């Protein structure tokens, strides 16, 4: 048991020896060590967050055929630090008529709802904060706190754009939680565990090959939860100026912005953990925990890049379309998929791996095809009601 095989435990043991050597109570030393661990994790995340700003700006620049920040430092790497200094030296104000306490708590809660997610992320088999046995529900619970922070921000700002934006965003988050919860149950069924480490350990075949449709629905629900395009109508610039955070400036706005970026990266990470094997990559995680962390961060970055790719290519969807899409299409599909996966998993249990994987894959494809057929028939009927049967028939030929 040395540092390179189990860094967290070695470091904790060493610190424990040091602290008790100073004559400290054992319980107090444990609390202090846990606190130092949390501090270390949050510090690393905030430093990462600073670079996420740079990554986001560089990537969006490439999508829009620009260069992005390239003046301050090599490749513009120092740019986010300049931005932070700018945000910090701006006037820190609370608008008149705002509810002071609630207005100031909201950005903190927003950041907190993202940071607490990292308590359950397994970065490597031995590098994780807690292996909570209700990890997936914890993910939803943290989302609930995020929802609360948005409605607090929208209400306390005393601004009608902020309130409308908050209403929209909360409606979206509450409704897209339903398909997300249903798809979160699919890795649970496949792995027999709700803890994230158990789910990663069970992925000898990545779950994306076993349940591709579930991975897709989770990604859609996650993007809606993040409030990013095409679901960013809570801050639609053309109609709501900037939505729930309109009255925020300086570092308070910075908290919302940094929280959103870190949230996107985090959901990229969760997508990788749930469907792409987490820290596992052809046995690389066995070699060294540090390699496993590198694999995990790499996969999370790819997930984050896909979320950015969708954001900067899709256009905004209208709110009623979006809620109808969720309640009339995504939620039923997610529930049907959950039942089909549970059934197929029970039927195919004990069969050889190739048969199991192909059977599960085909059942997913079947559900997706049936859902698309039903949606096509229904929408065709709707259009016939509006435009008359002839026009629709002509448009199809």
């Amino acid at each position, binding site marked *: 048991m040395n540092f390179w095989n189990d860094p967290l435990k070695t470091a904790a043991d060493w610190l424990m020896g040091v602290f008790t050597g100073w004559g400290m109570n054992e319980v107090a030393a444990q609390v202090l060590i846990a606190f130092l661990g949390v501090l270390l994790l949050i510090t690393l995340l905030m430093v990462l967050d600073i670079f996420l700003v740079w990554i986001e700006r560089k990537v969006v620049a490439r999508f829009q055929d620009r260069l992005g920040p390239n003046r301050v430092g090599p490749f513009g790497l120092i740019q986010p630090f300049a931005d932070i200094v700018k945000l910090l030296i701006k006037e820190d104000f609370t608008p008149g008529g705002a509810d002071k306490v609630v207005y100031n708590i909201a950005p903190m809660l927003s950041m907190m709802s993202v940071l607490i997610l990292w308590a359950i992320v397994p970065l490597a088999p031995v590098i994780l904060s807690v292996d909570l046995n209700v990890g997936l529900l914890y993910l939803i619970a943290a989302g609930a706190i995020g929802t609360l922070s948005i409605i607090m921000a929208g209400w306390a700002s005393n601004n009608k754009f902020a309130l409308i934006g908050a209403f929209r965003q909360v409606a979206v988050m*509450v409704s897209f939680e339903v398909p997300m919860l249903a798809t979160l149950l699919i890795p649970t069924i496949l792995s027999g565990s709700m803890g994230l480490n158990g789910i990663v350990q069970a992925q000898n075949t990545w779950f994306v090959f076993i349940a591709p449709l579930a991975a897709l629905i989770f990604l859609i629900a996650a993007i809606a939860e993040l409030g990013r395009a095409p679901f960013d109508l809570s801050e639609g610039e053309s109609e709501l100026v900037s939505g729930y955070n309109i009255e925020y400036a300086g570092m308070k706005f910075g908290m919302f912005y940094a929280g959103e970026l870190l949230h996107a990266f985090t959901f990229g990470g969760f997508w990788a953990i749930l469907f792409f094997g987490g820290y596992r990559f052809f046995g690389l995680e066995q070699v060294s925990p540090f390699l496993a962390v590198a694999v995990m961060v790499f996969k999370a970055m790819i997930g984050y890049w896909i979320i950015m790719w969708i954001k900067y290519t899709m256009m905004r969807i209208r709110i009623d379309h979006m809620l109808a899409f969720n309640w009339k299409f995504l939620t039923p599909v997610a529930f049907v998929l959950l039942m089909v996966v549970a059934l197929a998993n029970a039927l195919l249990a004990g069969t050889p791996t190739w048969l199991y994987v192909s059977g599960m894959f085909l059942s997913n494809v079947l559900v997706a095809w049936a859902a698309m057929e039903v949606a096509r028939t229904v929408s065709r009927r709707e259009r016939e009601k509006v435009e008359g049967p002839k026009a629709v028939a002509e448009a199809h030929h």
Partner: protein
Amino acid sequence: MTAEQIVFLIVALVTLGSAFMVVTTRNLIHAALWLVATLFGVAVVYALLNAGFLAVVQVVVYIGAIAILFIFAVMLTRKDARDSGPQTHKNWWVGALLAVASYLGLSALVLGWSGSSKAAAGLPSGFDAVGQLGEALTSPNAYVLPFEVASVLLLAALVGAVYVAFNRK
């Protein structure tokens, strides 16, 4: 006094304090936010009781759904942004008296009961509370029937709420 007792006392004080704010604050949005604080305190109490599943479900259901619903309802049922008029009716002291009497009565009952001072036994090693709970909820010789009745109740509430609140033209 052990560390666990100190943690419990802090959590209990925060929970009761914010519960008191829920019933006395004039601004109803603030009352709903204090309710969130209370519910969070109760979630921590569940965690102290080793009921992790209940703690997480408490946050998901109460804070994620019920508290948000309350905030929406308060916003939808106000003529203006102010809370005018008294928030309690004139016989409020009867309610206060009854509440104090019920608290004293319940406390006397608890303290008079011989089993109330016992400490919890340690959890059996390898005890999987979530797994046990899942089996209890779905096994036919345990609680599958109440569980199904609860799901029917939720469906009925869903339909009923939509029917009642639907704005007929």
